[in-house]
């Protein structure tokens, strides 16, 4: 009995040495068994991308909330089935059930597995898979087809116009008023102010503004009227100088051209507005043209011009600024009316043809919309919605 008592510490120590590891192993087994298996459903070259990327899609596991959830997934990769799988990425748990592996070599074969971070549980092997760049973005098929159709339509109408077909364009009062406004300024002996907006020189609205500037500058050259063009963007200033110089040359008065009247102010919105307002109040131009891209400064400019007593013609494709211009200007070119200006002013059949194409394009959109609404509302089909579901990137 005493011997037994003497041996008690040894028995106790032995029990610690033997039983605890067994419990630990059993416990580990218990945790493992509570973590669901991982299965890679698909591994593929990432679609519609520039290459160097592979997408892995796995079955999203549902965890037993009473046990500790792993912090994330580890993504393992090997070059061949015989090589070791190395951990290449960590994806936090709770994220999507797919992941894009970036910055890998195009054309090289890879195999993938996925596992829970800090555990030995890993999925099946998926692969082989190779990354490659795609030559067409399938998400943009609709946009591509519409672009081709619109280009074909435009070219068709251009050919029609070249053969002498007649094209009608409705009167646009804002453009008709340009000549009168310049005439008024000339009679009053005051300058005219042309503001090409806050857009870059490459913006379509700014390009449209240049076409009107060309027309205006030809008349000011003929009438010997001073034209002031304060610019927001330096590249706009350079193009505007070129347009006005060319117009004065065309009008046979290159001697009257003064490039100091077409100048850069600043690329800050409200300091620019303050400067242009200052010009309106100091030089008192008799006609103000606000043509191009405008934002919150539109009303400040137009109201100051109104107060200075100038006749004002505005035009922008910024829908939200149109009401401000309508409220404070004599004439406003809305949206695509601004783009139509060059065709309207020149009456060039080629330019008119593009306008016609635009009209037909718009008719097409309206017909498509009506059919789409009827099909979706009456027949409950989402065919048109899916057809127009454009993936812009």
């Amino acid at each position, binding site marked *: 009995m005493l011997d037994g008592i003497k041996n008690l510490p040894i028995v106790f120590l032995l029990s610690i040495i033997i039983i605890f590891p067994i419990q630990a192993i059993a416990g580990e087994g218990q945790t493992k068994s509570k973590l669901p298996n991982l299965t890679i459903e698909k591994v593929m070259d990432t679609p519609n991308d520039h290459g160097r990327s592979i997408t892995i899609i796995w079955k999203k596991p549902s965890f037993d909330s009473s046990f500790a959830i792993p912090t994330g997934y580890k993504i393992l990769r090997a070059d061949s089935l015989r090589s070791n799988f190395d951990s290449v990425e960590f994806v936090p748990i709770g994220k999507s059930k797919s992941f894009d592996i970036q910055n890998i070599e195009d054309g090289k074969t890879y195999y993938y597995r996925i596992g829970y971070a800090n555990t030995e549980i890993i999925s099946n092997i998926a692969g082989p898979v190779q990354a490659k760049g795609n030559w067409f973005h399938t998400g943009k098929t609709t946009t591509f087809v519409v672009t081709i159709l619109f280009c074909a339509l435009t070219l068709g109408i251009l050919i029609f116009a070249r053969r002498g077909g007649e094209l009608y364009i409705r009167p646009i009062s804002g453009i008709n008023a340009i000549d009168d406004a310049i005439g008024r300024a000339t009679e009053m002996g005051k300058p005219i102010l042309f503001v090409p907006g806050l857009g870059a020189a490459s913006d379509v609205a700014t390009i449209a503004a240049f076409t009107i500037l060309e027309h205006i500058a030809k008349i000011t050259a003929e009438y010997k009227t001073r034209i002031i063009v304060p610019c927001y963007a330096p590249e706009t200033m350079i193009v505007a100088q070129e347009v006005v110089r060319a117009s004065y040359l065309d009008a046979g008065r290159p001697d009257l051209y003064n490039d100091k009247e077409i100048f850069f102010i600043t690329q*800050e919105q409200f300091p620019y507005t303050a400067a242009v307002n200052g010009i309106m109040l100091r030089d008192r131009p008799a006609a103000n043209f606000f043509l191009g891209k405008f934002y919150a400064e539109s009303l400040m400019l137009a109201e100051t011009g109104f107060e200075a007593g100038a006749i004002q013609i505005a035009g922008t494709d910024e829908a*939200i600024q149109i009401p401000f211009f309508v409220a404070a200007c004599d004439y406003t070119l809305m949206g695509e009316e601004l783009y139509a200006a060059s065709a309207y002013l020149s009456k060039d059949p080629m330019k008119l043809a593009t306008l016609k194409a635009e009209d037909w394009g718009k008719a097409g959109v309206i017909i498509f919309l009506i059919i789409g609404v009827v099909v979706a509302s009456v027949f409950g089909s989402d065919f048109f919605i899916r057809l127009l579901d454009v*993936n*812009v*990137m």
Partner: protein
Amino acid sequence: MGIFEKIIKLDRRIIFLVIFLSVIFPLIFKVNIPINITPEVRNVYNLIENLPEGSVIVVPCEYAPDTMAELEPMLYAVLRHCWEKNLRVVACGFYVTGVTLIEQEIKYMAKQMNKKYGKDYIFLGYRPYPAAVINSMGEDFRQSFPTDYYGTPLDSLPMMRGVKNFNDTKLVLTINATSGVDYWVLFGHERYGFPLAIGVTAVMAADYYHYLNSGQIVGIIGGLKGAAEYESLVHHKGLATMGMSIQSFVHLVIVLFIIIGNIAYFVIRKRKGINR
């Protein structure tokens, strides 16, 4: 010239003076008007409210001092909400003259809420060409911002461990006074699929409802009114709530001017016997 002719040709300086007084009046007399919450603001609030503690949200701020009157209270209310919920904030700026302002505002709010830089928030600073930056942030924040505004590498900031790109964030809420909102919708949400909310000036708000209707954005905080609604939701009345009584009063005065102008117009028309 009769009284009505005078009203019709009212000197705009009188209008300016009345508007100025309408701004001053509620400031002196502290008029409190209850604020109704619009669904588009509540959507943003609910989304943040339901985020788990520790989630990362990206707050790109694109505005300068000119629009700070409207957008600063908005940023404060949003940051207060995020930090009350112990969310982590990644802020950045894409408007060159606004970076200094935004950095100051975030620092001020963090001090108010006892939040630590690098642990609860970081400020990435400014990069030009927002579209390109959004694209690269979608791959890895470190591509465009290897360091934060103060030159600290992102990897050495505790908050950024495990935060690689938009996949690791729960929401992008851009507070914006520029056309950069479109970039966040087209290059950000469309490509990377993160939930996007916007806070914009009142004059811009009407322009973005089509994105709300199409589900491309989850909510809009529009102008000072939107900021005041958010302040109400987070139960902390600040500058926007104070501004609401001013804005209400000024709107009312403008409507009164319109009514008076129309009365004068109709009286003169009747006198002249002009019948449509």
